[in-house]
């Protein structure tokens, strides 16, 4: 028990976030008379929030380097508009159109990264300009009109589900299988890590605690996949999100590049004198943001089945809020991918829950604002207590 409370105390920010998410979910589960966690609504939650979560991952990197990107909503709209021109007006096959769109996103990111990293204009200003520029260009490209419909294959990215090879009737069988497979992979990797750590003679958590942790995670995974399976199964978009989370968590935690990004955000001058290519790193973080903003724009267009001039308005604010609720530091150097995702889910569940109980959009905004403030205040309170 003692080690458990110690574990909790040393990771209070991370666990605090998860606890907060669970509490919010319980609250709305009660307020909505159990609608929130119905399989249909869970699926909707994923579909509704996917594009914000994709943005939050990119935004996390930007914020860790000590910058901000206000233009992502406009970039998402701009790329969505271009993809519509390519697919709807020019009848280009959708895989090719997606690739071109992502490249354009990268180029937009490179444009902004150039001004921030090499000319050293504050990112707030560069991306504020970008927000105006790309919103304007969206309207130019679309000529002020909505463009639709997209090809069915493209739409399925955002609204489709993985096929069921096993032909389950009531329950989506493949989804259950995926859940079990993930559980096995998780148990195997955690067990292997534990063995290596023991081989290095490091301290590891006690065996019962280790098993308890695994059981808890496996239970969550399988309950989650079961709930999805009772509706249509795993949405395609969840697969994309899952892959992104895995890749970015790996890059940020395990690679030299990730370390350099954290170091750059923690102290740019010291990082530079330690051999981190600070300018190049900043540049690429913005390129990455551009690509993810483009992906977000594509997902949104596919879900809406239309490219509109008003797409992506205020996306940047939701993404930034998600990252900060998820424990990132406004001065840079601190933040995790998982934190940003949880932060995004907190916002998403609140949006969804408040809509379900019929709360007006006006009040929703007030409450979301207060939650953002409270999360960051809690963070700062903890930091002050620790030092």
């Amino acid at each position: 028990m003692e080690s458990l409370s110690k574990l909790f105390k040393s990771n209070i920010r991370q666990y605090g976030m998860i606890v907060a998410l669970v509490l919010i979910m319980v609250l709305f589960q009660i307020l909505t008379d159990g609608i929130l966690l119905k399989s249909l609504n869970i699926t909707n939650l994923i579909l509704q929030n996917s594009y914000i979560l994709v943005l939050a991952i990119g935004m996390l990197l930007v914020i860790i380097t000590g910058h901000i990107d206000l233009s992502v909503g406009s970039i998402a709209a701009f790329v969505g508009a271009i993809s519509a021109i390519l697919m709807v007006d020019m009848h280009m096959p959708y895989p090719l159109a997606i690739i071109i769109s992502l490249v354009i996103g990268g180029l937009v990111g490179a444009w902004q990264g150039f001004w921030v990293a090499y000319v050293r204009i504050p990112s707030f200003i560069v991306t504020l300009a970008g927000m105006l520029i790309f919103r304007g260009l969206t309207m130019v490209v679309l000529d002020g009109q909505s463009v639709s419909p997209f090809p069915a294959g493209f739409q399925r990215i955002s609204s489709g589900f993985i096929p069921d090879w096993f032909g389950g009737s009531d329950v989506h069988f493949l989804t259950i299988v995926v859940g079990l497979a993930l559980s096995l992979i998780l148990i195997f990797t955690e067990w292997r890590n534990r063995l290596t750590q023991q081989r290095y003679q490091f301290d590891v958590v006690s065996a019962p605690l280790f098993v308890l942790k695994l059981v808890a995670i496996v239970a969550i995974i399988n309950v989650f996949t079961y709930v999805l399976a009772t509706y249509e199964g795993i949405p395609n978009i969840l697969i994309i999100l899952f892959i992104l989370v895995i890749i970015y968590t790996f890059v940020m935690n395990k690679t030299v590049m990730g370390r350099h990004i954290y170091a750059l955000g923690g102290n740019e001058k010291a990082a530079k004198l330690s051999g981190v290519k600070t300018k190049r790193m900043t540049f690429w973080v913005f390129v990455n943001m551009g690509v993810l903003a483009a992906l977000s724009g594509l997902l949104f267009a596919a879900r809406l089945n239309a490219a509109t001039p008003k797409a992506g308005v205020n996306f940047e604010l939701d993404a930034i809020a998600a990252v900060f609720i998820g424990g990132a530091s406004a001065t840079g150097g601190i933040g995790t991918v998982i934190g940003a995702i949880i932060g995004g889910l907190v916002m998403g569940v609140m949006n969804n829950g408040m809509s379900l109980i019929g709360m007006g959009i006006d009040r929703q905004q007030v409450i979301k604002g207060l939650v953002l403030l409270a999360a960051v205040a809690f963070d700062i309170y903890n930091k002050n207590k620790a030092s």
Partner: protein
Amino acid sequence: MATNNILEMRGITKTFPGVKALENVNLQVKEGEIHALMGENGAGKSTLMKVLSGVYPHGSYTGDILYKGNVCEFKDITQSERLGIVIIHQELALIPQLSIAENIFLGNEQAKRGVINWNDTIGKTKELLKTVGLNESPNTLISSIGVGKQQLVEIAKALSKEVKLLILDEPTAALNEEDSENLLNLLLTFKKQGISSIMISHKLNEITKVADSITILRDGKTIETLDMVKDNINEDRIIKGMVGRDLTQRYPVREPKIGDTILEVKDWNVYHETQDRKVIDDVSMYIRKGEIVGIAGLMGAGRTELAMSLFGKSYGKRISGETLLNGKPVQMNTINQAIDQGLAYVTEDRKHYGLILMDDIKRNITLTGLNKISRNTVVNANQEIIEAERFRTKLNIKTPSILQKTGNLSGGNQQKVVLSKWIFSEPEVLILDEPTRGIDVGAKYEIYTIINQLAMEGKGVLIISSELPELLGMCDRMYVMSEGRFTGEVTREEASQEKLMKYMTKSRG
């Protein structure tokens, strides 16, 4: 009981979560004396002064503060300032974008109903500047004057608050010899006017010069209070009190084993980054394997600029000249090239340029050499822990865990982390810029031992230092810099403080 003590602190105990920073500390300062507060880093000197000035409010510590015989319970710094207790922190609290006058009266504006009387402000500033001997216009911006003058502005600011007890935390740490001298003389003048001072300093020669009495702290406890005259105190006696043992040798002994030339610099010229003037003028030098070479010079002589321009041209513009490593000409145009060629630069400002303070010890140590513990750019986290532990033991970094944030370490331990980082990158030449600045005597000795060890392993070491005894004690050979040029080169045998000083002050004829 009538005493002539202006200040008495009795039985002060202050605890932070998990640490007892001060334990039953007593301090008595007599009216009109200069009282030195000494001790190793982490001994509790700054904490004690923060208790005194109200930075740590009454109630957060136990014990009594008697000022002019009255018990004081300061809740914040304004209350202590009202009674004439003014503290000048090590890191100056001036706002660079404001003028001297604005800074002096910041928070104490000469105003009526919120409207500032600028004539009053300027007039009073002029008087104050005259008192501290600073010949600058009150409208000069802080950013355009040097650290030495800034320190004087801080003192003028203290005077404007009608200071009775002036507290200076390492006032000369960033000053060159001349400015330090001025400052110390100023303190002596104040003493004649009846202003008492408490001075925290690591520089023993300054203490012996100006202090009337000394209180020594060690590990948060009062060790002793010495009267300079009555007890006939010398530097060795003070060191003994601080470290609790006799430091017979302040610099570890080394038998130099000097090999071939490893780094050679020819006709090095560097221009200022923003102004059109040469900061390095035709410098040529060399370092041999196993040799410790020093660079002496006053502040502003261009020592740091030289080091940084060599280290991947991280300072300066229009750099010209030649660098040779092991006899072969090499290009070091970026920091990464310099690191790859085997150069390391330990900065003079470890907090801002050396460490990622919010990151732990482990990550700081491996930052430069991450490639050594990674495959296909994936870092081996387990190997990383082993390397970090190795350096913790080898360099004796005092910390409960390598996961400790470097921001929480003492100066000496922070410097050991920076050194670990660069040793881990396996350099051939190490440039150490003020390697022991702000580090206590005990840790200094450890740092010196590490430096000697590096030389014994055949690396070339270049030390830049403002402390002449340090150069004389450590270096085999010294270059002396003045106004961007090398004005002299002396070997260990022929070197003396006087000789170095003569070259250091040699200006362009």
